[in-house]
Structure formats: structure tokens, C-alpha cells
């Protein structure tokens, strides 16, 4: 069981959260010329590193806010949690 420190609610169990994937991918800007490759990078391509991974979680059974979590994908150690609009 992971224990995730929600920046709004404090330390909670993993099963209060739902996963949202890689937090580093950036949607291409609206109303700009966008190549197929840009969309490919955003929609499909993922680094999926072994080690530190910045990812989105939603505190679905709590405050319902989206948050960012920096976690080790090999050891599951959680280094840092942030509000969704904060940068590492």
C-alpha cells in the first residue's frame, strides 16, 4: 500500500487516489500549427523511466483535487508531492 501525502489533506492511503499517468507530457498549444509528430509525442510516446517519475494522481475519495507525485518506479519511494499547478 502506497501512502501519498496529499498537499491539501495530508497523508492518505493509496486506495483513496486514482492514477493519472506521466505529469511531464505537455499538450501542444491551442490554435498553433501542430505537426503529427507533436501529437504523437503528446498522446502516445512515454519515457516510462526506471527510477524517479513525476506523475499525476487524483484524490478521488478525498478532496478530488489533481496532484503531482514524484515517485521511484522501482522502490515506490515517494520523494515529493505538489499541487497540480506547482512545478518541481
Amino acid at each position, binding site marked *: *500500500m*502506497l501512502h501519498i501525502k496529499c498537499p491539501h489533506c495530508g497523508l492518505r492511503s*493509496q*486506495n483513496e487516489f486514482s*492514477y493519472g*499517468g*506521466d505529469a511531464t507530457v505537455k499538450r501542444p498549444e491551442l490554435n498553433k500549427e501542430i505537426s*503529427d*509528430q507533436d501529437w*504523437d*509525442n503528446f*498522446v*502516445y*510516446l*512515454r*519515457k*516510462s*523511466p*526506471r527510477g524517479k*517519475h513525476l*506523475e499525476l494522481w487524483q484524490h478521488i475519495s478525498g478532496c478530488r483535487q489533481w496532484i503531482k507525485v514524484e*515517485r521511484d*518506479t*522501482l*522502490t*515506490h519511494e515517494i520523494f515529493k508531492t505538489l499541487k497540480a499547478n506547482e512545478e518541481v
Partner: protein
Amino acid sequence: MQKYSVFSLIKNAFKGHKDWEVAWKDPTPKSEYDVIIIGGGGHGLATAYYLAKEHNITKVAIIEKGWIGGGNVGRNTTIIRSNYMHDENGLFSEFGMDLWRSMSQDLNFNVMFSPRGIINLAHSDAQMNVYSRRGNSMRLNGIDAVLLNREEVRKIIPMADFSENVRFPIFGGLMQPSAGTARHDAVAWGYARQADSMGVDIIQNCEVTGFDVSNGKILGIRTSKGDIKAKKIGLCVAGSTNILAEKLNMTLPIETHLLQACVSEPIKPILDNVVTFGAGHFYCSQSDKGEMVMGGDLDGYNSYAQRGNLPTLQHVLTEGIAMFPFLSKLKMLRTWGGIMDMSMDGSPIIDKTHINGLYLNCGWCYGGFKATPASGWTFAHTIAQDRPHELNAGYSLNRFNTGHLIDEKGLGTKTWIS
């Protein structure tokens, strides 16, 4: 190579089983090969076997970081099926079913293929409609499919929960009678033994640390046992694909996730088939030893941990008990986890890459074991002929860029949702 038969068994029994030949050798790597396959799992070993058998390419090495068959081919739930709706998946898997049926004779190794049938349970009228559509698609591709009503399912698995007041009543199911299971380790060992006998070097405990690429062409690999040159290199390392891709400066449409499985204590024979729960993600069969073999959802977040987390296991087994209430009486014998290449449309990739001489076999999601022979066969063809076979043409790397996805489950890119 020594042929395995009842006569060789009797002959060796009289000699106290002391004269059996080694099943495969333990060579030191040569300085150069025609083809190097990275990854000594089922797919890698099968690829080397078919390179030698179908294409007469025998100057081949398999480079394995650990020991052969120690990855996902030794960690799966042994289910073999071809009950897919899309043509690409159906035709590829059904080609594989033919290879499964003749595998024990072909490899002279008993892989214990047991075509016991798989039943996907349906729990609503809508789901029956979906199964009837999938069954029809399968039959159009020459795959056997039978739509069962509630009473027909009850005759086959009377121990399932057929009581009236359940949350997910059984409406019926879709059955593929020719699907089944096989002894997973035997598949790896059978391919290894045959590949070795045809001249393939199986090099274990040898980690790939880097690649030698120049002017867009692959020249060789760097390993913990020294540099090895090769004209062609195939990657067969599901679970570790992203780690090797990083060394090649490639970013792939793959996330690495953890899948758990478990077995109960052995009990007397009760379940003749493979059965899947239709209102969640749970599947179950009974091994020859009597253990109930069970699995279900991914742990749900990127992971390389190779060990599972309890909330997912609890969730999966809750579904299991909803389907087969008797499971609640059993003790758990073992649980384990393996890491999966989760591709962004749920289908695999068997293709060339932008690097000349480098070939990719990855993205098997939950379904790599059943694909072992077809994957090896088509990957060997792709490497030998430098172009995909028509059976794996759909499993291209650029389908994500061009929009030709093969999204069997309609899950899109959220691979952790199941």
C-alpha cells in the same frame, strides 16, 4: 541432439539417469554474429529457433541478463487463446494456435498443451450482444467460437455463482473451445534446447550495457562480457524495453506496469476450463497440480518493482469470489508480480526501427505468453527478410503516428485502466 522418447527414458532409467546430455550448452560469446537476440525469454528463444529452422540463419546469439525463462515466460498464467475481434490480432493468434498444436512434436519436448477451452462470462444483455459480435468476427477469421446461454454455462461450470440475488448475474458467455493452457517453463526449455542444437549460442548472465550505432546503422552491443558485433539485432525484452530504448535514444509508445498473479493451495479437480469474469478483470484455471491459477488487473501505476501491492490483489480476488464463491475457502499458496510492456493501444509491436539492422519486438501487455510461437515466427521472418510478414504488418511501430491503432478493448492510451 539426444531425442527424448519413452525408449530414451527407459534406457536412461537403467543407467540411473546419469548419462543424459545437457539440454543446452553454456558457451562464451564469440566476437561476431549474424544476428543477436537480446532477451532469453519465450519470444527471444522462439525467434532464434525459427531463424535457424525457417531461414537457415544459425550464427545467432541470445543474450540474457539473468537466466533463460526467468522473466515473464516463467511468471504468467499460461493461458493460450485467439478470441480476438480485430483481424490483425485474430489471424496472428490463430496462426499461433496451429504452432501450439504441433509444438510438442516439433520441439520433441512435452509442453503439455491442453486445449481445454476458455469461457468469457457475460453479465448483461448488452454484453451478450458484444460477445455475439466478437464471436461472429472470430468465426469469419476461421476461429472457433460458441455463444453459450446461462443454462449452457451452468452445465460446464456449475460451481459458479448462479444464485438469483447477485450483483452480476451470469447471462451466458462466449467460449473458444480450442483455447487452453500449456506448461510455460517447458516452452522456454523446448525452444532453448532445439535452438542450441542448431548452433545458436545461449549466453546467460550477460547484461547489455549499450549499443554501437554509427550512421544510422547498428554495429553491435556492449555487454558485461565484452563487446559483440552483429549485422542484425533484435530486441525481445518485454518489461525492460523502455530501459534499453533509453540507451538507444528512442522513446516508445509503451509504459511499464506491474501485473500480479497468484495460485491457491492444490485441491481436487474442479475446473476443466479457463474462465474469465465479465464484470471486471479476473481469470482462473486449475493447474495439473490442482492449484487454482488466478490473475486480473495491473497494479495501476508505472512500476518496475516485480512485486505486487496488496490493494490490487484484494480487488482482483473479490471479483474471483463473486464468480466462484468456493474460492473464499482456499488458502493462498503463492503470489508474484511481473513487469509488462503496456502499449498505447493494447496491441504489440513487431517491426523494424529507424536504425538499420535493429528490430523491435515489444508491447505485449497482458498477452505475451500465448503469442510466443507466432511472435518468434514472425519476428524471425522480419529479421531474416528485413520486412514484416503479412501476419505482423499491422503491428507496426508507426501506427500510432498514422492512426492505424489496433485497440481491441477500446481503452485508448490509459493503459492502467482495465
